[in-house]
């Protein structure tokens, strides 16, 4: 595992080294391609994961889940755009899948917030570390 991290770091430094001298970096900043969209999606996903893992407020945890689903959507759309640029016939499948992700996110928010209201009525708390009815 340490080896894996090390090789990742070397990879980044190599990238930085090759980009600093040439116009490759300028080019990629001026014309962002698929990988930039994927990186934005990855960062949003990580922020969402960090929110789910660290926050105590159950409503903010739900919002972080929305952020995660949104990052997945961004990846779908970026891939759909890439497939269109290669002339793939099924390129629009990514956009259709994004619609279904949005549907599931809406259903999840409705059910989840219903649970939060029922929980608040019975337990009078929204802090996840105080919701320990199943713990013994």
């Amino acid at each position, binding site marked *: 595992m340490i080896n894996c991290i090390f090789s990742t770091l070397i990879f980044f430094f190599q990238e930085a080294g090759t980009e600093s001298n040439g116009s490759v970096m300028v080019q990629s900043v*001026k014309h962002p391609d698929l990988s930039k969209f994927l990186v934005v999606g990855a960062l949003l996903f990580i922020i969402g994961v960090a929110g789910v893992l660290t926050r105590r407020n159950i*409503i903010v945890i739900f919002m*972080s889940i929305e*952020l995660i689903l949104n990052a997945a959507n961004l990846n779908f759309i970026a891939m759909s755009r890439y497939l269109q640029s290669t002339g793939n016939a099924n390129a629009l499948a990514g956009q259709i899948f994004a619609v279904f992700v949005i549907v599931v996110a*809406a259903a999840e928010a*409705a059910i989840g917030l219903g649970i939060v209201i029922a929980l608040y009525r019975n337990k009078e708390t929204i802090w996840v570390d105080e919701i320990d009815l199943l713990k013994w």
Partner: protein
Amino acid sequence: MPLSSYESLFFWIFAIAAIFAGLLTVMARNAVHSALFLISSLVSVAALFVLSGAEFIAGVQILVYVGGVMVLFLFVIMLVNVGAEESGREEIFNNQRQVTFSLIFCFLLVLGILYAVNKGSAVLLKDSLLNAEQLTEQQSEENQRLKSSATGTSRITKQTERVANSLYRYASLPFEIASILLLVAIVGSVMLARTLRQEASADDVDPDLLKDEATRDPELLKLEAASQE
């Protein structure tokens, strides 16, 4: 298919806005502020959708997320009490050890994902460059045939029409299943959010539990009796 120069300027603006708003969503002390930052993050991501040619998804994103889901979130935030959080009496994050370990985990995850994206997209881009020129010619030809918009600065794409076509052609069964899922979600959230009185007036409470609760709230028995007539 890289973005053109103006598009890339907007890409960077909205990408940075989305990430910063996402960070502030997680870090804001007040839950209402979190919701507002999440809204700005979602709008920025919708702008990124427009930049990648998915106008329909961008519209759906703003209508459903910002117009529907976030309003629901704000309602629930205002139903439950957040006063303690605002005044700084309550800690908003988990305890130190959990936060440390989850941040280490997230750091490793971000390294792994960025490595995979870098490596994977290099291969993908090599493939796409092969027939890029031919395709851009084809697409500019198609562009010429599209109707121009009222301002005359751009052309009206047929992207949404194509999405609708393939949605009903290839995904009509999942579409119906999604409608049933939404129906279940509506009924389920109404069932979950009912109070005990509402449950009693629908004759939906366990008789033993009702007897217990009636000592606290004698109204319940009356509602129960009324529902059985």
